[in-house]
């Protein structure tokens, strides 16, 4: 390909030359032709050389993956270098002589193998491995083929690739078939060798057929006879043994059934059928519960060691599989992350009882071997079940459960009368002996004190006789006072109830009477009713004169006043309207809060000596409203109480400007101290100055109300911004400019005017002036005019 291209190129060149020459004179043209002819000849020579060099290239190249082919064409330097190339082929010797291997400029390329070998010998290296030189030879033949192909004009097999380091060809992949064939052969040989070895080994060993020594019939017959004799002997011996066994059995008269041996059973089967009797004493390797009733399960003898002395066990393969499956499921259920000893993990059996466990009990099964539930057929099932039931009962007892049998007692005809048995069982229900909580009162304490130390007179309450007091208490309160010896007196709750109700009724009557007597207006009553008032009481309520004014209602909605009754000046036992507390004799006063309070208006005020006890009904929740109609003072009071007017208690920011208005004795402590200090200093150091002597005391509740205000020279308030400006002016000693000052003054003036300005008039009072004018002129209008002439015209218009 490349060569063809080169051809074309040359032709092009020559044609160009020709074309150029056309422009010239004919004589010149002629010369040119001659030149071109010469050129052609040169070209031919070149081609020949190139071809030979190509041969060299391909010769070298084929042993490698990549073959370097120097770029052949235009740059003449490289082409010259080609000429210098020595060829390692047959022609190399001729070339070598003509061309030095290392040119002066160092651009020389290749040394032949012989030359390199010589060089290597000089350097102390081993000669080149020309063992692989076979390959280049073969490749050289390949290159010849390529050349032939070139001649044919076929496309080259090798692809030319251009690179930074020149053009090169990719070597096609080597033939793997040959390699694989060789390898296959080797493998075959190897395998055959191994086979032979194995056969040799086997040849030494005698086979079963060969090992038999009894080739002849006589020997075989002898052998078989011997075997038969031995068999007979063995049978005899077995019989003997059996007889002995039976004898032994008879002698010892065993009531215990020995586990049936298979031998024995097989014999028995000959004599009689193998019945359920024979099965007795056999162990079954399954839980008895796993056998469902009325289902056939075929059990087989379990595989066992020959030397094992234990009796035979029966098992079912399917059941065994089931068990294994169950166990696997259990194992799977276990949390794989839980291993080790967990202290807090509690285990309970199916009845909820705690199972105590040893440490790492989970490995018990693996160490000791799993315990499998078994049973022996001989033992009656009922017995086992009985045992189980007993165990269950024990468990239930432990757990405080009652087991109910499903077998109910036979049904009976119901009768109203007791049977004798029932009568014996029957008991009158015991009456509850009410325990009466004794409320510890101050009086009781006094009594005790009185008992211990001879009776003393202490105060007004003591003056009442004990008996009297008791009576009073019994009457008024629902509390039956505990007598000194409770053993003698039996209090029955029914009676107590009765008394309670009676006393209540009595009190209600009293109340009615008093109500009539008392002027209703004076008393502010709050009667709070229980929701579960009885009907009678409701009637009573209707009869009562209860005034409900707005404030009272309001207070009711507010609920109870928390402080009400806390002072202890109210009788605690006044909840007379309760019907609830029949059983609980005295409700503790705890319930009082948050409930409706009942106030007994009729209750007699207890008066201590000299000390006026404030009657509860007199203490209104709200103060009495002063009559507004009476006077201004009253109105003011009312306003104050309602909160319309504010009392001047609140702290106002202390302002120095109003200092003279403030109370003269009022002073903030710190301030006063500071002032004192000052005076002390002025007075010559003595005085009130006690600096280091007095400790600094933190004032606990001291929270001064400070308000910073800045005032300028004209006593005008300053905004923070202005204050800053003022300060900065002072600090820098440089006031604001004249214009600024004027502006500020103007602003102030305007502000003043704005403040003075009435809201209904303009700042220049034009409205008032207008009104005055209108009054003067007595007309609803006013003439606006700049000068008199226009005024006249206006007048004229008015006239019209």
């Amino acid at each position: 390909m490349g060569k063809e291209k080169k051809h074309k190129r040359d032709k092009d060149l020559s044609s160009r030359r020709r074309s150029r020459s056309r422009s010239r004179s004919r004589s010149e043209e002629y010369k040119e032709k001659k030149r071109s002819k010469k050129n052609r000849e040169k070209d031919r020579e070149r081609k020949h050389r190139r071809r030979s060099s190509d041969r060299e290239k391909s010769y070298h190249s084929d042993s490698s993956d990549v073959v370097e082919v120097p770029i052949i064409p235009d740059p003449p330097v490289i082409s010259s270098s080609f000429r210098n190339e020595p060829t390692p082929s047959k022609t190399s010797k001729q070339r070598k002589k003509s061309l030095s291997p290392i040119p002066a400029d160092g651009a020389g390329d290749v040394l032949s193998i012989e030359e390199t070998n010589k060089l290597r010998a000089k350097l102390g290296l081993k000669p080149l491995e020309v063992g692989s030189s076979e390959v280049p030879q073969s490749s050289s033949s390949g290159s010849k083929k390529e050349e032939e192909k070139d001649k044919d004009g076929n496309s080259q097999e090798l692809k030319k690739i251009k690179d930074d380091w020149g053009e090169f060809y990719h070597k096609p992949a080597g033939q793997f078939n040959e390699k694989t064939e060789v390898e296959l052969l080797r493998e075959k040989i190897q395998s055959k060798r191994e086979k032979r070895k194995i056969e040799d080994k086997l040849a030494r060993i005698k086979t079963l057929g060969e090992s038999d020594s009894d080739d002849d019939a006589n020997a075989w017959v002898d052998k078989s006879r011997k075997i038969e004799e031995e068999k007979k002997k063995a049978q005899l011996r077995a019989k003997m043994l059996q007889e002995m066994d039976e004898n032994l059995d008879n002698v010892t008269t065993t009531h215990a059934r020995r586990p049936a041996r298979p031998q024995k059973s097989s014999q028995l089967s000959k004599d009689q059928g193998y019945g359920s009797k024979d099965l007795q004493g056999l162990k079954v390797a399954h839980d008895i519960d796993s056998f469902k009733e009325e289902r056939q399960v075929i059990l087989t003898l379990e595989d066992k060691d020959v030397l094992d002395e234990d009796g035979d066990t029966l098992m079912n393969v399917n059941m065994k599989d089931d068990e294994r499956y169950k166990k696997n499921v259990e194992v799977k259920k276990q949390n794989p992350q839980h291993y080790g000893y967990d202290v807090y993990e509690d285990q309970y059996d199916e009845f909820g009882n705690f199972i105590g466990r040893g440490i790492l009990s989970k490995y018990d099964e693996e160490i000791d071997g799993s315990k499998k539930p078994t049973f022996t057929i001989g033992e009656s099932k009922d017995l086992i079940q009985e045992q189980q039931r007993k165990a269950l009962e024990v468990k239930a007892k432990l757990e405080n459960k009652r087991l109910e049998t499903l077998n109910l007692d036979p049904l009976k005809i119901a009768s109203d009368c007791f049977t004798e048995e029932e009568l014996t069982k029957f008991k009158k229900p015991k009456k509850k002996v009410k325990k009466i909580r004794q409320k510890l009162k101050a009086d009781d304490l006094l009594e005790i004190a009185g008992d211990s130390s001879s009776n003393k007179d202490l105060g007004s309450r003591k003056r009442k006789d004990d008996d009297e007091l008791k009576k009073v208490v019994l009457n008024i309160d629902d509390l039956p006072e505990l007598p000194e010896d409770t053993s003698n007196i039996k209090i029955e709750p029914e009676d107590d109830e009765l008394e309670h109700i009676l006393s209540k009724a009595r009190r209600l009557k009293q109340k009615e009477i008093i109500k009539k007597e008392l002027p209703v207006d004076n008393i502010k009553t709050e009667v709070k009713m229980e929701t579960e008032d009885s009907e009678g009481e409701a009637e009573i309520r209707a009869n009562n004169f209860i005034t409900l004014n707005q404030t009272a209602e309001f207070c009711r909605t507010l609920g109870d006043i928390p402080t009400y009754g806390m002072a202890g000046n109210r009788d605690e036992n006044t909840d007379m309207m309760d019907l609830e507390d029949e059983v609980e004799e005295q409700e503790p006063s705890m319930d009082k809060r948050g409930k409706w309070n009942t106030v007994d208006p009729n209750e007699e005020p207890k008066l201590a000596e000299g000390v006026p006890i404030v009657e509860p009904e007199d203490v209104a929740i709200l103060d009495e409203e002063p009559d507004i109609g009476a006077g201004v003072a009253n109105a003011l009071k009312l306003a104050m109480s309602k909160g319309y007017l504010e009392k001047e208690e609140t702290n106002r920011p202390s302002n120095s400007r109003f200092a003279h208005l403030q109370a003269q004795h009022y002073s903030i402590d710190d301030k006063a101290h500071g002032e004192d200090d000052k005076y002390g200093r002025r007075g010559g150091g003595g005085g009130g100055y006690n600096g280091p002597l007095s400790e600094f005391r933190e004032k606990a509740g001291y929270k001064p109300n400070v308000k910073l205000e800045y005032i300028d020279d004209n006593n005008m308030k300053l905004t923070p911004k202005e204050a800053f400006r003022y300060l900065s002016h002072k600090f820098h000693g440089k006031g604001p400019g004249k214009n600024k000052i004027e502006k500020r003054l103007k602003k102030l003036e305007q502000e003043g005017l704005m403040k003075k300005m009435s809201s209904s008039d303009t700042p220049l009072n034009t409205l008032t002036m207008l009104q005055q004018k209108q009054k003067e002129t007595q007309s609803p209008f006013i003439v606006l005019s700049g000068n008199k002439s226009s005024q006249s015209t206006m007048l004229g218009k008015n006239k019209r």
Partner: protein
Amino acid sequence: MLEITCNDRLGKKVRVKCNPDDTIGDLKKLIAAQTGTRYDKIVLKKWYTIYKDNIRLSDYEIHDGMNLEMYYQ
């Protein structure tokens, strides 16, 4: 036998025949013989790997026809 092309891009380009079990040092000596520069001044490189003198060509996996860059110390 390998043939390696060594090129410093300053005008020296040499093709050297050598054994795969030659060391880089040997190769350098061969190059030195061909080019005339001292072998200890030659640095052989492929991209950024500088070949060390005491290591064999086969260990560097230098194959036939490979180009090595030649630099001078």
